[in-house]
């Protein structure tokens, strides 16, 4: 009886993993298409149009191309690390999805320290980039890897500190508890009372995913393609896949921590009562899509930062602001809000 229950439990977890992976991988592939289309329109171009109707089969064509391309390993490369590095990045990007709830009753691992595990996963993923950069045996790749290490390490501090405000408000490290706390709060979301924390988190999310305007580790005008320079074929594809999965992880985190996850604010439901009938996963999906769109929009709009500007913004502006946000939350909490 016990073994049957254990077997069913394992089977259920495996099914959940398969569902989440399937949905996220499909989303990651089509986000590339959406990015090319949206940026194309913003730059008065059409984007992909040739493969399938409206270019909808372009991601599949890209995938086939990447899988069938020759896997080139440079002579100067440290072979073992060079081969493993993309896997490290991809694995930790996927692992983060396991502690994020997609519905009140749909989560792979409902652990008490969900937020801390995501921070741990993010801090380990950077090894893949640094090691990939070093093992390529190229100066461009090495510099890209080092830039990435400095950037991610610096931005993890304000990211963690802005999350401290959210944790303090909800008095829990569990993402589902954080969402429930926001649903019961006056504003219905953390983004209003913790506007400073939200802005800091949003900026750090761009830096953590190495996206424009913080894409210095792979700045093509300075470092060819940074740590990806020597990679080709499906290994290069793994780096890009990890980047797009990270965008979804960060968007989900923003939505869960600052925009009430799958819930809508009480005041909004009072103004538009029919919104009560919108299913929870749809609410979550729309909010996440908005932030994914924001990632793309920002890439098309802002120029890249200089490295010293990036560092100085983190240490001189974001860290003090996130500390201030934490103090404000502490005072609000003390005042009974």
């Amino acid at each position, binding site marked *: 009886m016990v073994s049957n229950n254990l077997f069913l439990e394992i089977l259920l977890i495996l099914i959940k993993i398969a569902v989440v992976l399937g949905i996220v991988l499909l989303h990651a592939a089509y986000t590339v298409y959406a990015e090319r289309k949206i940026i194309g329109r913003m730059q008065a171009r059409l984007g992909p149009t040739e493969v399938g109707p409206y270019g909808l089969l372009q991601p599949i064509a890209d995938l086939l191309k990447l899988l069938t391309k020759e896997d080139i390993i440079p002579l100067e490369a440290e072979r073992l690390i060079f081969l493993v590095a993309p896997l490290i990045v991809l694995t930790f990007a996927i692992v983060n999805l396991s502690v994020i709830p997609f519905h009140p009753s749909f989560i792979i691992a409902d652990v008490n320290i969900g937020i801390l595990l995501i921070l741990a996963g993010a801090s380990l993923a950077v090894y893949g980039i640094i090691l990939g950069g070093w093992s390529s045996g190229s100066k461009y790749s090495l510099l890209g890897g080092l830039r990435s290490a400095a950037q991610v390490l610096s931005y993890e501090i304000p990211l963690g500190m802005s999350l401290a405000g959210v944790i303090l408000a909800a008095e829990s490290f569990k993402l589902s508890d954080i969402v429930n706390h926001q649903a019961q709060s006056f504003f219905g979301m953390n983004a209003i009372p913790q506007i400073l924390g939200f802005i800091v988190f949003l900026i750090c999310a761009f830096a953590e995913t190495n996206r424009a305007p913080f894409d210095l580790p792979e700045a093509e005008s300075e470092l060819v393609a940074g740590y990806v320079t020597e990679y080709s074929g499906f290994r290069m594809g793994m780096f890009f896949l990890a980047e797009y999965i990270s965008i979804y992880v960060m968007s989900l985190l923003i939505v869960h921590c600052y925009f009430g996850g799958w819930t809508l604010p009480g005041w909004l439901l009072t103004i538009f009562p029919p919104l009560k009938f919108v299913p929870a996963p749809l609410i979550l999906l729309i909010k996440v899509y908005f932030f994914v769109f924001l990632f793309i929009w920002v890439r098309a709009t802002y120029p890249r930062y200089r490295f010293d500007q990036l560092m100085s913004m983190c*240490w001189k502006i974001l860290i003090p602001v996130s500390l201030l946000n934490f103090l404000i939350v502490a005072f609000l909490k003390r005042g009974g809000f």
Partner: protein
Amino acid sequence: MARPLFMSIFLLLFLALFLLLFRQKKVVYQFLVYLVMMVLLGIVYLFLGSEFLMAFQIIVYAGAILVMFLFFLYLYPEEEFKIQDMRNSTLIKTLIPSLLFVITLILILFTFDVREYEASASVYSVKELAKLIYNQYPLAIFLLAFILTYPMIAIYLLMKGSESDD
């Protein structure tokens, strides 16, 4: 039944990696083995029921401090330093005390009655946790805060210094 079995596997893996660490000549590979050991140690903490310690072991040690080592290693100009060709006598001198330490640690975890840490409600309540830390360990927290603030001030001063040099 499954918990002690998995813990034994992880501890044996820990020992195997420890021996592998001494077999590596390239410092980068030594570093990588060490990194995996740090993550494994985190997993052992998890088996002992201390989730917080596991998270901080990975975030602070594996995620931040070891990255600094790697950074230093890549920027260090002398390539000879990066390949350690130890003599046998030196290797034995280094290996024996470290091995004794690791085996003692593993023996303690196996033979003594190391009970699973019983997570009380205070562990998962931020308010209770804060009460415990600030009322019972204020000095330790003060020292920790001072130690953590010190490098931040040092970095700021270094940046100011480099700006004025420019």
